[in-house]
């Protein structure tokens, strides 16, 4: 069973601070990590491989720095890594990114399952998986917490707000995972060494995976970011003290001053 696994390198948002002046993320000194739910996807893929054999190829779109994430994925047990790295990919929204990833999947060609995390912690869109499935015309199962393979079918537990569904899908298909899926393993020391000393990560450009120029990067994006900002912090609260009657009067006055009520 051959699996393609998408991963994204993201800033560790548990460490991220926001510059109060510019409202943008302070990325300096913030460690980059594999997007947590993508790690669940890697673990799910490795478990499936341990059970059913096959090969796992990790695909990521990003700058050369994303190699670190791929080495970590390799140390966890995947077989091959491909980095989609091209200046032309820069500025892509989810549509352009999904198209690019779909083209990479077509380029790889042989696969039974495409798997990824539900969403990345730096964007929280959860759009990539479903859009890639649409591009590739694959059945898709999102929010998966368990995957079983039965011949050419997979049986997936899909989490809903108030329960879960059991869904059967024909392979090839696409699945996005949530963190309840599994506990990602620690890489072993020897795999870390192999990942650093032996693993070769091929870079693929837009042309190599046959992308149309107008459909990738900024040009291929249907949406744009107008402004990034942090919500303004609320001011300190005011505690009204005194007899109930006085407190009510004070409160009404405050509400009037703030134009919340009018008399």
């Amino acid at each position, binding site marked *: 069973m051959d699996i393609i696994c998408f991963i994204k390198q993201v800033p560790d948002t548990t460490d991220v601070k926001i510059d109060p002046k510019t409202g943008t993320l302070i990325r300096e000194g913030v460690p980059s990590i594999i997007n947590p739910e993508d790690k669940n996807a890697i673990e799910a893929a490795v478990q499936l491989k341990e059970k059913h054999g096959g090969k796992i190829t990790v695909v990521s779109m990003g700058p050369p720095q994303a190699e*670190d994430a791929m*080495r*970590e994925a390799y*140390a966890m047990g995947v077989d091959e890594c491909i980095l989609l790295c091209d200046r032309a990919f820069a500025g892509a929204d989810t549509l352009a990114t999904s198209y690019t990833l779909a083209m990479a999947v077509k380029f790889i060609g042989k696969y039974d399952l495409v798997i990824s995390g539900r969403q990345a912690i730096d964007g929280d869109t959860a759009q990539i998986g479903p859009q890639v499935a649409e591009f590739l015309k694959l059945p898709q199962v999102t929010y998966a917490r368990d995957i079983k393979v039965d011949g050419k079918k997979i049986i997936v537990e899909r989490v809903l707000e108030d329960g879960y569904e059991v869904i059967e899908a024909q392979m090839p298909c696409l699945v996005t995972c949530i963190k309840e899926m599994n506990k990602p393993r*620690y*890489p*072993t*020391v*020897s795999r*870390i*060494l192999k*990942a*650093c*000393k032996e693993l070769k990560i091929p870079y693929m450009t837009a042309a190599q995976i046959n992308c149309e120029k107008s459909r990738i990067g900024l040009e291929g994006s249907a949406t744009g970011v107008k402004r990034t900002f942090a919500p303004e912090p609320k001011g300190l609260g005011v505690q009204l003290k005194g007899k109930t009657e006085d407190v009510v009067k004070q409160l009404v006055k405050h509400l009037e001053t703030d134009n919340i009520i009018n008399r």
Partner: protein
Amino acid sequence: MDLKLSKEQEMIRQMAREFADKEIEPLAEDIDKSHKYPIDLAMKMGKLGFMGMMVEPAFGGAGTDTVSYTIAIEEISRASAAVAIIMSVCNSLVCYPLQKNANEAQKKKYLPDIATGKKIGAFALTEPSAGTDAGAQQTIAVKKDNEYILNGSKIFITNATNAETFILFALTDKTKGAKGISAFIIEKGFPGFSIGTVEELMGIRGSGQAEVVMDNCHVPAENLLGAEGAGFGIAMGTLDSGRIGVAAQSVGIAQAALDEACKYAMEREQFGKPIGKFQAIQWMVADMATEIEAARLLVRRAAQAKDTQKKFSSEAAMAKLYASEMVMRATTKAVQIHGGYGYTKDYKVERLIRDAKITEIYEGTSEVQRMVISGGLLK
């Protein structure tokens, strides 16, 4: 000299830190309180390759350099010094002498199980009357036909409660003193071998220190490690390597003390502000951080020396001497910053100061380190 960590060293650090934070830290207090050997944790670490980091891949190890090993020990020590010494003994005091001195058959038989976490190893040199004077061994090994018969006892043996493979020293020739000492690979199940009293320790509780007793213990002759009479040299060479691990352990405990002290200093308020705003505390923290960094560099230097040159006794002794005395100062300051609370079992620093003390004692006391260092100078 490049002080930047390589890619794999950085990845090993990250992995060890994550493992320590998520898997060891939550258990560390209980391991200390219950004094119970964390065998499941040790096995888990073995599977990840922590127990035979520098062992050649052909014998089940990961094949890392010593620098990577010290980085991992430091990270594990931040969470639990007891777990760190369990790991350090397997790597430095068992795998290292096996890799260096064992023949192919012995390596094949014993190394993979320890390096992959199937079995725990221990190093049995110290005796009631042979501590710093390790040459004064009283355990006797008499060769009879195709085996040695061992009689005697060893004390303070880390991992002894759960180890299945022991590197053990005994006199094969009483007349030759230290030159009559030989090393053996002992299996727990050999007839006449048993574990005696389990020590009740001040610190590194749960690391399985116990007495080891040989009462007409039958050891196959093929389990002699190295040549007859080569034991003292094997022991001393092994301890040189072990000291780098203990030095790294000291740095890890000290780093944990600094982390705790900084956190507490910014939370605890006196005179209307966090105590970290007072110069008295700031100076202590600055001194701790500086000394930790100095010790860390000595550890790296010793590890690098072991990776690149034949002799590293002096570098290892300096790293261990400085780091172990440094961690006593650092943990003392951390308790001081915590005030009365630091003297209670509710705070981690209370454990850290108890754990720290052993680093000045085992694998050669501070006095022995000074002997080694000065011995290299005053020839």
